[in-house]
């Protein structure tokens, strides 16, 4: 055999093997990084270019095809490389429209989770201090077994307690401002019904000591939660009750039982309908405006929820709150700002009020509890509302008549 020819063949064999190796390398790179690191895939194309080009040099018969192919792969690699060089972003589909329309198909645990979300804002938030959800319950109620409710009864042990309450004499023969939820509704006959009744008609029975100040427990400070501004649907209240059972390790009644209980105390025309759900993507959910800022002052203070805890001189109906100090701010603020416990930085009465709304714990008035005032008024009230609140409060002086709120 011709030695030279042999050598040439051998050389070409090596080149072929080299190209083959490169191709294997390229394919491996493709396979490995297909999903993980797809930015590396054009590298495969680059290797292909080299391999085909090499083959084109040493295999004369397929030279044109190989060089043409190498060029084409190069062009494709250049485009793909450019695209991979740009920053990458994945477009996630929007989350499923949450349809809580049919709670009867949910498992008990799912239902309880929904309940927890409604009370505290998120699943697992029940242990987080200060968390509050759509139902706004933690504003007044406490839920821990060892906590003491200031404004409203502790909700721990409610399922058990309810069973006992309905059998009490005080319950059976109550004397409140509104003794039945609506004409013909009757009163609760089981613990389950009691829970429903107290949600729908807080005035029907007031736990001793938690009535509105001065009413001798004949009237409850709690709003009916199926009405504005909280607007929970029956299904949502069912979810909340389910959570109350489940978290104490009790077996929750069925959804149907609970629905029937609520329907007993809420007349048909008062039952809030579930909102039509998310209409499109990118929605931040339905929101609740505390107050528009255009209301008359008494209404504004009520909607902003100040009157629940504070006595505000000059504002009718704002004379019962005793969880927070009476708001003679013009008199008190200068003293408080000089107090050694004061940690804020306000230098005027207006600034002090604003500061107290945005960050209530900068100064705790003696004899009042820490952490009682929600910290989210700053994000929940709009500028006009805050402006008018500050404006009015800053004129309240002890011993003087409050300004005429109708003009402010």
């Amino acid at each position, binding site marked *: 055999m011709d030695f030279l020819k042999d050598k040439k063949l051998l050389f070409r064999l090596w080149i072929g093997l080299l190209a083959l190796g490169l191709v294997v390398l390229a394919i491996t790179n493709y396979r490995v990084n297909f999903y993980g690191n797809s930015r590396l895939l054009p590298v495969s194309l680059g290797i292909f270019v080299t391999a085909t080009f090499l083959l084109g040099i040493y295999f004369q018969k397929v030279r044109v095809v190989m060089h043409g192919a190498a060029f084409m792969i190069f062009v494709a690699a250049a485009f793909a490389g450019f695209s991979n060089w*740009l*920053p*990458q*972003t994945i*477009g*996630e*589909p*929007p*989350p499923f429209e949450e349809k809580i329309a049919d709670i009867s198909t949910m498992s008990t645990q799912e239902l309880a989770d929904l309940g927890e979300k409604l009370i505290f804002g998120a699943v697992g938030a029940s242990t987080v201090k200060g968390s509050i959800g759509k139902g706004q319950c933690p504003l007044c109620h406490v839920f821990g077994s060892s906590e003491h409710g200031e404004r409203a009864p502790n909700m721990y042990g409610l399922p058990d307690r309810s069973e006992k309450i309905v059998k009490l004499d005080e319950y059976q023969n109550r004397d409140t401002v509104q003794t039945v939820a609506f004409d013909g509704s009757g009163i609760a006959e089981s613990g389950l019904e009691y829970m429903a009744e107290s949600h729908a008609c807080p005035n029907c029975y007031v736990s001793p000591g938690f009535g509105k100040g001065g009413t001798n427990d004949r009237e409850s400070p709690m709003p009916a939660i199926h009405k504005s501004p909280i607007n929970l649907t029956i299904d949502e209240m069912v979810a909340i009750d389910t959570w109350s059972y489940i978290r104490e390790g009790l077996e929750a009644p069925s959804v149907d039982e609970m629905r029937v209980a609520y329907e007993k105390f809420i007349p048909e025309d008062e039952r809030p309908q579930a*909102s*039509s759900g998310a*209409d*499109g*993507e*990118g*929605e*931040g959910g*339905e*929101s*609740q*405006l505390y107050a*528009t800022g*255009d209301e008359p002052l008494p209404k504004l203070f009520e909607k902003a929820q100040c009157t629940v805890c504070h006595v505000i001189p000059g504002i009718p109906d704002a004379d019962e709150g005793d969880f927070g100090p009476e708001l003679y701010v013009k008199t008190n603020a200068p003293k408080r700002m000089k107090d050694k416990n004061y940690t804020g930085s306000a230098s005027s009465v207006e600034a002090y009020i604003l500061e107290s709304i945005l960050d209530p714990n900068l100064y705790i008035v003696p004899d009042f509890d820490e952490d009682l005032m929600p910290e989210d008024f700053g*994000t*929940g*009230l*709009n*500028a*006009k509302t805050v*402006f008018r609140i500050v404006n009015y409060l800053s004129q309240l002086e002890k011993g003087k008549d409050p300004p005429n709120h109708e003009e402010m």
Partner: protein
Amino acid sequence: MPGFIEGMMPVQLLAEILLIIVIFVLGAMILDKKMGIRIPMLLQAALVFIAGWWYYKFRIEPPLPFSVRAIYQVMIAIGIFMWVSSAEKGWTEFKRPILAVLDAKTPLTWWVRAVLLVVLPLSASGMAYKNLLPSLGEPIELRTVHPAPPAAVTVHGKKFPLQTSESPVRVDESGEYSNHIQDAHVMDNPFDPDSIQYMQNVKEGGDIFFQNCHFCHGDNLNGRGLYAYAFNPIPANFTDPGTLAQLQETFVFWRVAKGGPGLPREGFPWASAMPPWEQHLTTEEIWKVILFEYWHTKYPPRTWDE
């Protein structure tokens, strides 16, 4: 060197590039024809390439991001290739020194080749090293500037289809919606108590803006408010023709009402600190503040059907 003239910058840039090329061509021609010095094609090409690099790197102020300069430089290289290889004669001339170096025909080219053989791998490895070196810089973030809006938004229980909704406060004297009302009243005094309903809406929108928005978006609506630099990116500049002027009023309504949290998933991670204003403002107030923003910047809202 004088800076760029405000208002003429894009045109000025093109003119400057043109000037550089004219000087370059004329210079080469004069050298060739008058003085008999012919600049080798390869050198000419290199000069153009370097001139382009210099121009975009040092002349443009503020500095351009690397990505843009890279695109430009690749385009310039392609242009140079097209130019030198457009005719066979120039191409041969261009290739000659390169081939000479590759073939090492003279001692000089041999040396050039030897040096290149050392320098090229070294610089390649240097670049690789530099690239692999862990960097402390923040990662690049791809932000969608105009996120796609949903087909409709629900604000305070009312559904607004973005395609068809109209601002209820953009009204003419008769109380009807009017596209052109702004043009006629752009110079009006909003504090005039006798002004038409439209101007009163503008004024109320202004009140709302200065109560709520100006801390970030600035009292000139230029996105340079008191707190603007606490955010990255800084708040939108409404005087920029790329923001309000390019958007439909309903799009702005969606962004104001739903804020950063209402951005679609594709905008993740959210790079918007804007609160969902529907929690603070009524629907009408949102429309009014938008009305004010357009009035103040003098841009008409974008419309599709005209």
